[in-house]
């Protein structure tokens, strides 16, 4: 067993290192990722180790980063872009959705576009505007992209390598509030496919589903509920596009109740899609409507208000209570 306790940033760093070593067409590009090692130090030491032709400090231009990454992919490279913060992805939105997402289809099999775009996202870090967003839904909704988000260092280590190894564009959302807490990483083998969802805590009374930083909140809610005599099952979504519904459906068949939780605003969100799909596919298993716990449909507020904005264990349990009341 090669299990080691490490932060998610270290896990990502190790995963990137392994990817760079495994395939010399892999290269990293982004603002401040080379000499500085990234504002979150995720790429620390990689430029020293692999050189400036494998780890590029780019000009300050998100559209430029993604657009040139596309050109590099056409040349046969496997670029891994870093967008420095979630709120800064929008200048690159057009290159991601009008170009990267559509190029595979447009080229009818003649070219591959193995571009990975890493994005630190989510709240709970007390940051200023544009630094705590959850824009996953825009990209999950865009055909031609794959969207994933690890919740633990172990998953971060393996999923970044799997994303890089795949031939499709991947939006890789890294929950920055989980960057520094440590977790065990088993480096011996990857046990889970990139797009698989997974039950991380078993229970019988209701199912909780979430991704990224929300998973820790759901586990916390489950612990509290257990002391109150309620048994909750928690599913880590891991992949937002495509979504692996099988474990969720099996869970709902068992518990009959589902609560989906996300930091992102609820209107037209990934949680809404899950709710609709489960209502359709598990209609006869449901004892209660599927409930969603989301951020409010407002721009992310000033940091002093984030604890009111972001769903916490109490908000999750409030929804659980409502579900159980049916």
């Amino acid at each position: 067993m090669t299990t080691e306790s490490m932060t998610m940033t270290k896990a990502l760093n190790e995963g990137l290192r392994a990817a760079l070593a495994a395939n010399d067409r892999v290269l990293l590009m982004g603002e401040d990722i080379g000499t500085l090692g990234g504002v979150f130090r995720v790429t620390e030491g990689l430029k020293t180790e692999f050189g400036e032709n494998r780890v590029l400090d780019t000009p300050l231009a998100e559209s430029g980063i993604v657009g040139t990454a596309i050109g590099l992919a056409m040349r046969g490279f496997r670029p891994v872009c870093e967008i420095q913060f979630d709120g800064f992805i929008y200048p690159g939105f057009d290159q991601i959705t009008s170009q990267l997402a559509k190029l595979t289809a447009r080229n009818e099999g003649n070219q591959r576009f193995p571009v990975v775009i890493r994005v630190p996202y989510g709240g709970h870090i007390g940051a200023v505007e544009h630094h705590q967003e959850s824009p996953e839904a825009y990209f999950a909704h865009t055909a031609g992209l794959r969207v994933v988000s690890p919740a633990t260092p172990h998953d971060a280590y393996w999923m970044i390598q799997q994303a890089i190894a795949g031939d499709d564009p991947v939006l890789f959302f890294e929950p920055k509030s989980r960057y520094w807490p440590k977790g065990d990483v088993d480096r011996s083998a990857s046990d889970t496919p990139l797009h698989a969802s997974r039950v991380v805590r078993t229970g019988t009374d209701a199912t909780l589903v979430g991704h990224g930083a929300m998973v820790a909140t759901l586990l916390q809610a489950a612990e509290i509920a257990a002391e109150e005599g309620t048994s909750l099952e928690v599913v880590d979504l891991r992949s937002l596009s495509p979504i692996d519904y099988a474990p969720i459906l099996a869970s709902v068949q068992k518990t009959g109740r589902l609560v989906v939780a996300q930091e992102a605003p609820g209107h037209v969100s990934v949680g809404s899609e899950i709710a609709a799909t489960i209502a359709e596919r598990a209609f006869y298993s449901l004892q209660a409507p599927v409930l969603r716990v989301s951020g409010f449909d407002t721009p992310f507020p000033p940091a002093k208000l984030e604890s009111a904005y972001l769903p916490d264990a109490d908000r999750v349990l409030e929804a659980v209570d409502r579900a159980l009341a049916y």
Partner: protein
Amino acid sequence: MAQEFPLPDVGEGLTEAEIVSWKVKPGDTVTVNQVLVEIETAKSLVELPSPFAGTVTELLFEEGATVEVGAPIIRVDSSGGTIELQAPRGGDTVGEVGDTKASAPAPAEESSGAVLVGYGSSGHGATRRRRRPGAVATTAEGATADGAKASARRPVATGSAMPIIAKPPIRKLAKDLDVDLAGVTGTGVGGEITREDVVRGASQATVFRNLETPAWPEEREERIPVKGVRKAIATAMVQSAFTAPHVSVFTDVNATRTMEFTRRLKDSAQFAGIRVSPLLVMAKAVIWAVQRNPTVNSTWTDAEIIVHHYVNLGIAAATPRGLIVPNIKDAQNLSLRELAMALEQLTVTARDGKTTPADMSQGTITITNLGSFGMDTGTPILNPGEVGIVALGAIKQKPWVVDGEVRPAYVTTVSAAFDHRIVDGDVASRFTADLASVIEEPALLLD
């Protein structure tokens, strides 16, 4: 070979154009790409080049006419073989938004299908593709996870992998009627539990709540022949009502302890799987109270009053065919558990219509459970040959004075009617008070 040139959509989504000026006339020889006509669209003036070589035979529209995209505008007799021209797509089945010619008035509340002004209609008589005979409708994106409709399933207890197949409104109905879906057999497609299944599974009494308001019948009256069970009931009622002078007494009592007692019985292993309700407590109470007030458990004949030293406890049962009163023979010998089972058996038998005349004869005293109809109390009529009948009312939360304070408590009205030829007011009251005291404190049954 005559060929037609349909008006193309020259500007990405145009639906019509006006013929401005023809550049050719019938009889002219034209070559491919020769300009035939100038048209005006919403966007601009456009010249249309000929797709054919040949002789113009007919101009199909005059200058100034507005033509829909797709309509042929010119006929050419083509010398060099035919060319297949695909009719342009778009504009041929769906009309423009705001097509005022075909728009309906603002949708009236009464007429369904009316479309709000401005949305237009499809104009051309929209149609849908027909399903091929024998084709199966596609399920949404493959089989549903619980594969609900694929095969008939028997619902099983929760906790297993097989789901109970019931739609949300049916689940709510079951909850309202206190029916456990796990015990219901679904008769719908694929084992789905239908409304009727739930209603059938409901307890005998809860069935008799009005669930729907039927429409007024068209006929002015309906005539039901008096025969069978109805005739028998009528005869018995008349005999009772106009032979025995009825007197009734009522008392309200705090039934909280009966509710708690019932709940604890339900949870106990001894009573697992056996239906336990306040009626059971009342049944035991009646037996105990009869022991203390024997004359209420008797029969009047003109010559003598026969006091029975056994209790054949009748339970009034409402069935689809009418009221019947089967009785539990020698109920005084039954343990609480045996009594519970006997009550359940009696109920099921009555609901299934299998009660025999023997079951219904030799009763000595009767309980009627008006509470299951939600009624607080009533004035029942004696079962012919009996001297007492007890009515158990609904047990509801009501204000009650406890230790000098008004508090919510489970309260019920115990009432009883008697044949006043045998039972005077004091016996009536003592008997009824005994019933009430058991309801108030079931531990008295340990006497």
